[in-house]
């Protein structure tokens, strides 16, 4: 019998420990500087190891112009892409205005609503703005926004038509169009730089997407349209990995493209894209990055990243914070950031981008001018050309 009692006691202890552990995993937003939610995985408690999290360490009182709660997309911080771009916007706002912010990295789609609610209903601190990053948060926010009419929200990558939500969408297809123009010209020339080179005999390009969704299809549509615009006989092969967190899947998809003759692969797949860069290095070909200048954020691969389609998520976050500070929240508005406002840009790689021939650079900037002038209509769905 003793062993049975022992066993029960152990099971009780183990289940209690397990519950605490689980609570820690799904820990909600930590409250300002009090830090009593120490086990939550939201990055604001990690003793400032990278110097970027100090925003939440002060006291939420006095002369702080605004307190922001941010819910990241399911790629998580450290993706060197979408979420990190959003964080840069906050860090910039922290430097310029002295705001404070708290961060959450949901594990999956089901948790978005929870985190949004917790920020919206918190009174200590009272969040001036809740930033929701990513298309996947649309449904959750559409449900939550009417329930908290006094809370200001901002949403990136999608539109929720509520008076308290400022929606920021990007015309990714326009930026991707430029990447298509650049890629089509490069694959037709004999070009080499860094660790990669193109094969002038084969005129193939690749596109690797994360999850098949309207946003990622905009990238694909723009890229394909850009290729069609710049060259007649260049093929684009497309593959969706099905996840933003599957680098080995991205590597396989990109390797098969390179091996069937693709010179350049453009990815829009968050952390999955690391696999694409790895494949580019293995095969001695080029890749295009996305969201941030990935030749800088992924320095190990800067010798194959020729250019990146930079999406200024940081600008969107920064602007929304600055609007809230000025008491000018653009609730109910949908702000589309395209080429003319530099919301999307083609940024050449830090290490090898300078070696792109001048006539190709000119062709890309001509295409940019033509889109801004309205001479080119870029489709948002693949196959709409």
């Amino acid at each position, binding site marked *: 019998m003793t062993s049975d009692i*022992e*066993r029960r006691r152990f*099971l009780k202890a*183990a289940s209690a420990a*397990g519950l605490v*552990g*689980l609570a*820690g*995993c799904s820990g909600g937003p930590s409250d300002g500087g009090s830090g009593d939610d120490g086990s939550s*995985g939201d*990055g604001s408690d*990690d*003793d400032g*190891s*990278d110097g*970027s*999290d100090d925003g939440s360490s002060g006291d939420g009182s006095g002369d702080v112009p605004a307190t922001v709660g941010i819910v990241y997309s*399911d*790629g*998580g*911080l*450290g*993706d*060197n892409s979408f*979420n*990190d771009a959003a964080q840069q916007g906050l860090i910039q706002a922290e430097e310029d205005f002295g705001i404070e912010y708290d961060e959450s*990295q949901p*594990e*999956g789609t089901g948790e978005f609503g929870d985190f949004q609610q917790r920020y919206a209903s918190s009174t200590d601190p009272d969040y001036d703005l809740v930033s929701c990053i990513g298309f996947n948060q649309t449904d959750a926010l559409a449900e939550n926004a009417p329930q908290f009419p006094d809370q200001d929200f901002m949403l990136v990558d999608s539109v929720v038509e509520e008076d308290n939500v400022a929606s920021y969408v990007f015309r990714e297809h326009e930026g991707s169009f430029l990447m298509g123009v650049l890629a089509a010209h490069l694959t037709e020339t004999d070009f080499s730089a860094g660790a990669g080179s193109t094969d002038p005999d084969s005129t193939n390009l*690749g596109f690797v*997407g994360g999850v*098949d969704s309207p946003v990622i299809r905009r990238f694909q549509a723009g890229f394909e349209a850009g290729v069609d615009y710049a060259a007649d006989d260049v093929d684009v*092969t*497309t*593959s*969706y990995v*099905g*996840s*933003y*967190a*599957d*680098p*080995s*899947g991205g*590597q*396989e*998809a990109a*390797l*098969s*493209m390179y*091996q*069937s003759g693709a010179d350049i692969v453009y990815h829009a797949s*968050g*952390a999955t894209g*690391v*696999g694409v860069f*790895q494949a580019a290095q293995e095969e001695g070909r080029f890749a295009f990055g996305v969201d941030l200048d990935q030749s800088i954020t*992924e*320095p*190990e691969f800067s010798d194959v990243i020729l250019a990146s389609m930079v999406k200024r998520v940081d600008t969107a976050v920064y602007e929304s914070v600055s609007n809230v500070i000025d008491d000018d929240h653009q609730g109910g508005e949908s702000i589309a950031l395209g080429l003319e406002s530099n919301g999307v840009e083609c940024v050449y790689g830090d290490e090898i981008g300078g070696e792109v021939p001048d006539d190709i650079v000119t062709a890309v900037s001509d295409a940019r001018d033509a889109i801004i002038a309205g001479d080119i209509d870029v489709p948002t769905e693949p196959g709409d050309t």
Partner: protein
Amino acid sequence: MRNPLADVPVPLLDDLIDDEYVRSLVVGVVGTLGVLGLLGLLFPGSVAGDLAGIVFSTGTAASTARLAAPIVLAGLGGIFAEKSGVINIGLEGLLIISAFASVYIASVIGIGNAVLGVPAIWIGFLAGIVASTLLAGVFGVVCIEFKADQIIAGLAVWLIALGLAPFMSTVFFGGVNTPNLGASVGWRYSAVMVLVATVASWWTLNRTAFGKHLQASGENPKALDTVGVSVSRVRYAGVLLSGVLSGVGGSALALSIGQFVGSGETMVQGKGFIAIVAYLFGNYNPLGTLGAGVLFAGLDATQIRLQQLGYAIPDTLVQTIPYVVVIVVLALVGRTRIPAAAGDHYETEE
């Protein structure tokens, strides 16, 4: 050892041919490939032609070898645990923890540095194995010493790793994804490890006294106890071996990219659960597990290439092909006999 006289020339083949299940699988796979190849030759422009072009390319084969490594290795580990009577459904957690630990230790040492002449990336590889073995050890203590429900404990292993690895990454690197190491372990190393581990597992299970003990511990622990072998010790050995093999798989997965990605389901993406299917599919035979893992990985590699042909089928449907085929094959030919005492606790009678 049904046929002790015949095991001198080609023991491996001989045993396999005896096994009708394995024979029907081999005939089925060879038959399907043959029909596909024939159709591909006859109608080069058709769907069959495209498919044959994909299946019989070296690129697909290499891709299969890379994708299969973590599945087969974790599956082999699962065999050892379950044969001994402990059902280990925490393989996914073991893969996650070893994937993170390998990258973490390699980055702490620093690529380019070496400890005792061993390059950092291989120290990281070993660290992944150690981390996975430790977690398997905890699982073993909970299940064997404290007689916890094996399914619940296995789920706990998965959930703990799923929460712990991204959390540690946030603490050490400031985000759920680690930075890239800038170095990686080539897939040929992991392919060799898979083959060595498969043959060694087969040998251990079928040709050594320890293999017999494992089997007895899972089928009839009382008999094992009666002849004076400690059931607990055999079961601990089985569980720890599942940790070691899963650790090899997890380290190989993360270090083939040089980075740990911890968002969502983490970069392991359910491979540990596929591994469970693989060893059940292979009916606890390491060679069968290798076959099942290669089948799944091969379908996955085919799926990736199929998408690129640009048929008017939604990509999301094409992505499900490996899972659907595995379920269909399992339903049609699957014949798994679970060890009689698997999942039961054994109380030794003094």
